[in-house]
């Protein structure tokens, strides 16, 4: 086989490996009432069952390797004000840091999903019925990426957007409209 034919073959094989990441904009889901029938409360300890508590079902297969879902999670982390307690980029504040390797209630996707939906003692509120579950999964993906648990080929090296927050030192002063100077008397 000639060198040229080999090169063409290699190029074709390389092209075949190209695959655009899929953005699942709409998730098929069954009708869910806006108000859940009973308000669930988090378990006091992981694994402990209390009276009247209903296990939160974690149904969706977790796509850990989708960079777009992770970026959406980052946006929602700001939108739903997770940053208000856990700090922007998860440095911690009123709530525990999310960017370290210490996990109070488990680091696996299902546990984080439950933590967000059910809440946890000492301050973490329940977001059941407040955040659509598809979005909770996106937040889970982002939360895991903050402590290096996401696949390195999916974790973005920089953020998708400025999130409306430009550091104040980078703000430009407002361009003022021109006004005619007053004539001197």
């Amino acid at each position, binding site marked *: 086989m000639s060198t040229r034919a080999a090169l063409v073959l290699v190029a074709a094989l390389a092209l075949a490996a190209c695959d655009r990441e899929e*953005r699942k*904009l*709409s*998730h098929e*889901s*069954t*009708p*869910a*009432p*806006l*108000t859940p029938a009973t308000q669930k409360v988090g378990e006091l300890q992981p694994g402990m069952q209390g009276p009247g508590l209903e296990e939160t079902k974690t149904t969706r297969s977790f796509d850990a390797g989708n960079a777009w879902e992770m970026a959406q999670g980052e*946006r929602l982390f700001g*939108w*739903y004000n997770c940053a208000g307690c856990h700090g922007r980029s998860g440095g911690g504040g009123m709530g525990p840091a999310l960017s370290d390797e210490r996990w109070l209630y488990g680091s696996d996707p299902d546990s984080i999903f439950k933590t967000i939906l059910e809440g946890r003692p000492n301050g973490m509120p329940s977001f059941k*019925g*407040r*955040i*659509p579950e*598809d*979005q909770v999964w996106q937040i889970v993906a982002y939360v895991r990426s903050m402590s290096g648990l996401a696949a390195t080929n999916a974790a973005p090296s920089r953020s998708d*957007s*400025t*999130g*409306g927050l*430009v550091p104040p030192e*980078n*703000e*430009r*002063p*407002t*361009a*003022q*409209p*021109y*006004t*005619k100077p007053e004539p001197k008397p």
Partner: protein
Amino acid sequence: MTPLQDALHPAGIQAAHIAGLWWFTVAICAVVFVAILAGLFYALVRAPRGDAATPPDMASMERPERATKRTVVTAVALSIVGLLALLGASIATDRALATLPLANAVHIEVIGHQWWWQVNYDDPVPARTFSTANEMHIPVGRPVVVSLKADDVIHSFWVPNLHGKKDAIPGRTNTIQLQADKPGTYRGQCAEFCGLQHAFMAFTVVAEDDARFQQWADAQRKPAPEPTDAKARRGHDLFMSGTCMMCHQIQGTTANARKGPDLTHVASRPTLAAGTLANDAQSLAAWIRDPQKLKPGVNMPAHHVPDDELDALVAYLETLK
């Protein structure tokens, strides 16, 4: 729906300046175009000086061609004059645009989001400020200073009937000064590619006389009315106990999030989803159920809620006049 946008039918002094410059440029370019074509046709139809048998006239290599030289010098001079005229007109237009008198101006802040416009009306009294979305009312004959910001990526504010484009850039505030001299409804559009739904990022500018503008502003300042009938009441409760209030604001209720458009008077607006849909109950229901079908990529998630809850929610939102 709103009328088409049209830069050649200016409704304000600023757009009139720009349209004037446009017609001036077209006139000069038309003269140049006609002159060049005329010269070309003249060269084509001119009787040939010889036929195929005639040997080439090599003598012209040495002889100075006065006529050609004269033509070239004239053409260059005319080009310079034409280009200078265009430059002068452009500078004069820019000056005219920048020197709009701004006494008694209305101040409006417009923030570009993916993919809608937030419109904040400023007022020295904080309680009199209010916010709306994808719709701007302005009084006729009064200058309007629009401060432009962007929340995520670069957008561009463009109402062709009123003014040219101005970019909205994250981290800096631009201003654009415009004035409507003719009452009417004008369409605006994002003019800088900003993502999947850039094409569906339109807004409406309503220019009306000062009294009607004040009347509209006063209505917008009012908090949302309490729902009276049972169905709307249920919709209100669903809105407040579900996912809606995580992103939207309705003044006078507990919904205070500011990530999505302010819905305090959503039923009074002409369109939904930044000019994507006409604002009626049917579109509203379809929009709440699956916005991704109507505007793929939009940040509002789908809500596959049971029919009766959707009805109640729509009934409530329809009361927010």
